[in-house]
């Protein structure tokens, strides 16, 4: 197997594992898939076809630039005390079209398409869009240093949290 094919398989397996970890609620494991300095960004739509481009000065759906923030978020939605997140929905993340778009030294940029089927309160809600993962290797293991989530639904039913995306 060529090096390129090996990397493709490793990256795909990693991206699929993230989806499974979220769907199975293995939150500590999910956290550990990210670097401490990670960025998680879900931009907002400006109009029908344009997204915001600067998470610092424009509106986003979610913007976190440290793993602590993700940790706090996970605490919040698993605490049982956030009405919006109790009970948590069942989620089913499908990820496809996984493509390595750049390799720059240790840094691998990966694009993919995603769709999540979620179910709660006898109601099914579907979300979908694109991911761009930036992966780096720390002590031999892949970690997410940056994840950009584009959500196509721009008026969402109810609300969204990281477990929908």
């Amino acid at each position, binding site marked *: 197997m060529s090096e390129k094919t090996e990397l493709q398989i490793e990256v795909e397996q990693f991206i699929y594992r993230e989806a499974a970890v979220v769907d199975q609620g293995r939150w500590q494991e999910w956290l550990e898939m990210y670097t401490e300095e990670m960025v998680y960004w879900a931009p907002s739509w*400006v109009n029908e076809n344009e997204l*915001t481009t600067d998470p610092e000065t424009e509106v*986003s759906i979610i913007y976190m630039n440290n793993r602590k923030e993700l940790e706090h978020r996970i605490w919040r939605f698993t605490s049982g005390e956030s009405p*919006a997140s109790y009970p948590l929905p069942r989620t089913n993340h499908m990820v496809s079209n996984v493509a390595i778009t750049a390799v720059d030294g240790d840094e691998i940029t990966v694009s993919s398409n995603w769709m999540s089927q979620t179910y709660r309160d006898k109601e099914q809600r579907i979300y979908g869009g694109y991911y761009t993962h930036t992966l780096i290797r720390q002590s031999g293991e892949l970690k997410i240093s940056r994840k950009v989530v584009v959500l196509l639904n721009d008026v*969402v039913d*109810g609300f969204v949290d*990281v477990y929908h995306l």
Partner: protein
Amino acid sequence: MKVETLTTGDAGPIDFSSFVEHNADASEARIKRVALTSPEIFDMEMRYIFEGNWVYLCHESQIPEVGDFFTTTMGRQPVIIIRNKEGRVNGFLNACSHKGTTLCRTQTGNKAAGFACSYHDWCFDLDGNLEYMPRMDEGFPAGKNLANHNLTRIAKVETHGGFVFGSLNADVCTLKEHLGDITEIIDMLNDQCEEGFEVVRGTNSCVYHGNWKLLIENGGGDGLHLPSVHKTLIKVVQMREQELAKGTTKAAKMVRVDELNDKDTVGATYAMQNGHTLIQSDLPNPEDRPAYARHQVFVERHGEERARWMSSKLRQVAIYPNLFVMDQLASLIRYVRPIAADKTEVSYWCIAPKGEARELRVKRMRQFMDFFSIAGLGGPDDNHEFEQCQIGAHAAAAPWSDASFGLHTEFSGSDRRASEVGVHDAKFGGPVGWEGGSVRQYQNWVRLMEEGQKREMAMQR
């Protein structure tokens, strides 16, 4: 037990005054929950309130240039708000005078060259006048007056401080009279910088499965829900402060909400004219708000008390029936669009002083997203409670919601603090948590519904 039903026609008009019971002597107030669930009442609300009175439309910064438009609805009617050649804000029904086809089909855009309907190429100028149609000479006899083919204007469009309002009913008071002293609170935004406020790029909208009035009463006077619904937000604020102290996060410091309900915190809720409400309260850590950076400038220009309101206080106005102007944990427009009795769209538009320094804007954006985003740590919990209220409102054997908290502490008129900043026309007030604000909102609802019903019955006669 008699279950409430609603019928018009043979049964005669609906007695809306029976929906709100207010017994000041007993410090008791309650509201009939069928107002939240009845499709028939929703229909009447659309006609009498949203299509029969002043409603908020958009912010002028969303249509800065000639020909810029913004599409929205007034009740169920699609409308276009557009800036004409003279820079004035015009409003039209978004329906071609020919076949009713919509003319503007995106949220925003520019029609500086005028509107061309894509169905038959009828063209209108920015004042709604029919200018051209293909084979115009063949279709109509020479000299025929086509003025009745112009676009239909929104009967009234007026602005205050960048906020654009309109009414489909021409027989309403002026916008100035409608807003009353609420204008002081809007001015406190624009006075924060030389060029005024703008809406920041990026939308944030969701639909909750509940009645629109649930959000209006929540943000109009319910200061009681903070420590319960938002307990995880309060905890995250504390967690973030600890991490900031350790230097392990780069997120902006959040504005604390945990002390807002303390009886020692200086604050009040006021029931204003025409169903509007105002909440003001000191904030525990105003120095973490972007506006605080200019506190000294505010003092020099506007005096101590007004400067304190501008930089350090939570100020939240619910402008009846569909707009919140909020300058508190974040600064935003919260726009409410009823879709059905049990369905409401909410849009959160972050607002900021034009030309704000980058580091302040960065802080502002983080504080906005922390609480109010559709994925925020606060807003989703509120909206979820509205959905649960909507389900409970169908428990018709328990027809009343209580709104009595703090009624015994109610005072008449404005208090000293409000009067000091020019807010004189409050009708009643009470501490933060006093539910009188929502009672007065519902009393205004009764007035609008009764007036609308009377108007409609007079037309039918």
